[in-house]
């Protein structure tokens, strides 16, 4: 048996997969005086399919869009105190040390959680080869079943040949926070801190003690340069959200959801009246692609 599917048919099948991608993730980490976390939801749009004669499929210009990209940051403002220090006394009397009196009762916490979804975008490309996998309905599922949360449809009750796009390479733009995002983030943080500082001379004094809000933010977050770079490092390295997305896509299309599925045995004549359906077993299924189409070949009937 030989079946051929055009690039257009393949594209339609892939779009069904793509439109069902719903990536959600949340994580947080704390360091010293701050807690930072994210709560995100993303999906894919667009993309152009190119079947290639090296037996691979290339999907370009996929847009990764965020439905929600909430970046939460809570910082613990250090104690802001006056007094302290020691009064030098003549030897051998030990110095007398003054207590510090703090301007706030306890350490004030400040938190912001802007949604940056409208300000972030990524482009994605996938190169993969088509691989047939036989699904044995009688075999137990692996434990743990990593596909359980990723499956678009329930597993069939019968055996199937399933064609997956096995990703050989997935490229995703790294997180690059533009100046707009960095400025928005810093403005929100500055506003949140400003809101807890009283006005007038008290503000001037507190700002003098902490060395300015911008300086305080950089000191607390340990930001050597600019906030945009810090955010990028946070997501690219510390959280590794990019790798998380790549792993998600690889599992989603490579392991959990086929682009085509063929029942085994395959029904060639449907049941009618008193007649049972006519089915044939499928063996030795292979798939290849060239510039124009995807070709599936298999032996049918008894071996």
């Amino acid at each position, binding site marked *: 048996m030989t079946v051929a599917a055009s690039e257009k048919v393949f594209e339609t099948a892939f779009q069904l997969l793509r439109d069902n991608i719903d990536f959600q993730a949340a994580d947080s980490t704390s360091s010293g005086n701050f807690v930072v976390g994210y709560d995100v939801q993303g999906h894919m749009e667009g993309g152009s399919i190119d079947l290639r004669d090296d037996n691979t499929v290339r999907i370009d210009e996929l847009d990764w869009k965020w439905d929600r990209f909430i970046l939460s940051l809570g910082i613990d403002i250090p104690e802001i105190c006056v007094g302290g220090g020691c009064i030098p006394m003549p030897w051998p009397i030990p110095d*007398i040390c*003054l207590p510090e009196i703090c301007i706030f009762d306890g350490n004030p916490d400040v938190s912001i959680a802007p949604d940056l979804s409208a300000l972030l975008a990524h482009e994605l490309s996938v190169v993969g080869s088509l691989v047939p996998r036989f699904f044995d309905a009688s075999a137990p599922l692996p434990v743990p079943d990593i596909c359980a949360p990723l499956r678009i449809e329930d597993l069939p009750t019968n055996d199937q040949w399933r064609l997956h796009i096995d990703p050989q390479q997935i490229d995703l733009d790294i997180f690059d926070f533009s100046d707009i995002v960095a400025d928005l983030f810093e403005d929100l943080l500055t506003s949140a801190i400003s809101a807890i500082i009283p006005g007038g001379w008290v503000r001037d004094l507190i700002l003098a003690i902490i060395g300015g809000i911008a300086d305080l933010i950089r000191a607390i977050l340990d930001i050597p340069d600019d906030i945009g770079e810090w955010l990028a490092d946070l997501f690219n390295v510390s959280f590794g959200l990019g790798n998380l997305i790549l792993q998600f896509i690889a599992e989603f299309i490579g392991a959990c959801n086929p682009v085509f599925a063929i029942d085994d045995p395959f029904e060639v004549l449907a049941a009618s009246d008193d007649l049972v359906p006519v089915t044939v077993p499928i063996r030795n299924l292979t798939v290849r692609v060239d510039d124009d189409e995807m070709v599936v070949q298999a032996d049918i009937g008894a071996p």
Partner: protein
Amino acid sequence: MMKNRATINRPVVSSRVFDSSSLGVLMTLFHRFAEAGDYDVKVRRADSAGKPAGEAIFRRFRVRTDAKGEDQVNVDLAAAPHIADSECACHDEASYHLRVDGVMGFYVSRGTGRFSVEVVHLGEKAKRTVLDSAKSVPAGDLLAVTLVRPGTYKATNLIATAKTRTSSTIAVGLPKPEYGVRHDTAKALVVTTKPSGVMGESRSALQSGQTLVFAPEADARFRVSLEKDESGEPDRKSGANPAERRRFRYQKPGLKESRKS
């Protein structure tokens, strides 16, 4: 979405008058325990109207001094739980252990409460009061006042015998903001007062948050009050005494008349 939990320690920024007879926020009284032995320390709290501390003891504890104790202990009078005289364990175990000549700093970290401290040396034959802050700061002790509100203050020794230079003027300014530089408040200015009450410095300058330390050579009672606020205008809120501050008051109608009669 923003969330914050911040409560300002208001007395830090609103205090205008500091009197050694009623210790409040930004004031610390350092008492030197010069002799070995046990001391009975009684802390009294002024009433809510700011009147001088009454006889009721807010807190009471025992201090033991010998060769092995600590050099210094600071006690936050505001943080101390209220202990009734009858409930305290002050007659059994020493609450604090200082070395001879060690120092105890009595300070108030928060709140509007005003306190006085009485320290009685429990000698073998007789009890002897070595400190009663409601009356005076004895020679050898130190009174520290951290001045936060910018303006011009007048410091006076209220029980000076001298007729001149018993007061000092202190200008408190805001530090100039410098990018990336934190204002250091830890530097203190020490002002000695002679036995006659003459102040060692007639005029001095501090930056907001720094501390003025009075070192009397004879019993003294210090009062520091804001004379001109940060704008240079005479400060009208200082009043002569915390007790004289303006307050809201409910007066039951007819009560005054009935009392008169």
